[in-house]
């Protein structure tokens, strides 16, 4: 029971990730009308369009005059993540997250972290790639990142059949396992960068309570985006950096209950008076 409680968010996240892929898969194979399409663009209950705003940005840069459904769908998703929490897409929806988490787990098991090469792989690299995707989209007239996106490959692969895409996914897995810790999600993926920007001012955030903190640093150890937890043991405040994916692993591993989800702005005054 305590194990379940200790992993409650992880379990919920996996349910959310797998459940979504399952619904997409069911729509393709058995014709369920709950969630059709894929993460590029989908139709919820045959009425509500949802689409990937980053793909839409790239397509617009490519000079495409897009359909209304797509624009509405992208608007809904943008609004959702702008309100709900930062990169929640990455940890609660994106299927690649399961691959990279598996690589990360294996890293810990094999103690690869302890012999790591000191790569200087900047966490800003994703913003460079983000900019590059938009520039290349404009030059070539096609959505550039969609041509190489492992997210699209895996997500379509799981719904429509994976084919040679398995090799791409294996590449991501091996890169994260032997190449760099959190290499793909934490450094390269421009979609993650995009959602970091969108969710910069989102409401649902992890909050650190310094009075309860014992500075055991288990949270920074588990966090895939370490820099966002710069306040641990120093100040009571919200994790405000857009790079936080709201995966809640820090909340789960914290034994002194110093971290919890909270609503930003609403409770900010309270925390300021503390």
């Amino acid at each position, binding site marked *: 029971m305590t194990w379940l409680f200790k992993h409650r968010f992880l379990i919920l996240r996996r349910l959310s990730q797998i459940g979504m892929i399952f619904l997409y898969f069911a729509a393709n194979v058995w014709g369920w009308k709950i969630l059709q399409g894929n993460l590029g663009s989908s139709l919820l209950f045959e009425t509500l369009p949802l689409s990937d705003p980053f793909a839409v940005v790239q397509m617009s840069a490519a000079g495409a005059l897009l359909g209304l459904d797509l624009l509405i769908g992208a608007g809904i998703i943008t609004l959702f993540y702008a309100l709900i929490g930062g990169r929640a897409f990455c940890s609660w929806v994106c299927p690649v997250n399961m691959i990279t988490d598996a690589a990360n787990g294996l890293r810990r098991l094999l103690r690869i972290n302890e012999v790591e090469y000191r790569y200087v792989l900047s966490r800003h690299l994703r913003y460079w790639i983000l900019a590059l995707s938009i*520039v290349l989209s404009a030059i070539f007239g096609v959505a550039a990142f969609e041509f190489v996106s492992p997210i699209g490959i895996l997500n379509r692969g799981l719904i429509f059949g994976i084919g040679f895409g398995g090799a791409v996914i294996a590449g991501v897995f091996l890169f994260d396992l032997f190449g760099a810790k959190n290499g793909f999600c934490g450094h390269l993926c421009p979609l993650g960068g995009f959602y970091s920007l969108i969710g910069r001012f989102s409401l649902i955030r992890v909050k650190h309570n310094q009075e309860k903190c014992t500075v055991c640093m288990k949270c920074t150890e588990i966090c895939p985006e370490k820099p966002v937890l710069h306040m641990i043991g120093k100040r009571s405040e919200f994790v405000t950096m857009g790079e936080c994916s709201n995966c809640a692993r820090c909340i789960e591993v914290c034994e002194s209950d110093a971290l919890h989800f909270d609503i930003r702005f609403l409770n900010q005054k309270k925390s300021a008076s503390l």
Partner: protein
Amino acid sequence: MAKDKLPPLNERRRFLLQTLQGIGLATLGALTWSAYIDEASAASLVLRPPAALKEEDFLSHCIRCGLCVEACPFDTLKLARAGDNIPIGTPYFRAREIPCHMCKDIPCVPVCPSGALDESFVSTITKNGDKELDITLAAMGIAVIDADQCIAFWGIQCDACYRACPLINEAIVIDASRNDRTGKHAFMAPRVIGDVCTGCGMCEKACVTDKASIFVLPLAVAKGRAGSNYIKGWDAQDENRLKDQKGGGETTLTPKSSQKPIDYLNSEEF
């Protein structure tokens, strides 16, 4: 060692070097990436769903969501997977495997959220002013016959493609001619009417030869272009083009053209 004497990098130099490094790496990445995109988006021998935009526009509009694939009741449409040599994630079909069945309600087109499949390409306006879907307007490609391998051209009786065509006797017709080799048989050769053929591929699927002797090619590949300078004089509508024409009408002068036609008739040998 001389190296020991090098002073530490000052801040400005470090900044400049880092900037250059960033630019260099970004250029390298952009070149590799663009080479891949260029290669991947150049595949033109691919059949798209009905009402698809021109290949170039289609690629920029398609968000690769697969809604058309799911809507297709015959499993005709597939999403390109890595390694298929088709721009990844885009819908396509292979006529020899599963052709387009030309559904009357065209379920694959209205579901497209991005406009990559444009309903107006396959709609007509009825007398009441309503829009009505009409799959016969589709232009997915055009069937092309290899007359060398088509056994009907050999004189062997076969009309599999003709019978399979959803627009029988409209998109494919049979040209009968005398078979001089036997003296008592007819060649019954199929012929594709380009303006009518939708490129559904039912003929390619039905073809009895080992590798189909009638196959669908994308319009951009299969069609020629006469150019606007040729006018069908026997077609009043086509001749109207002459009226709007600006410029032109210049006479090309060569040494020959200085002679009058009458001189030519009188002096040249026949």
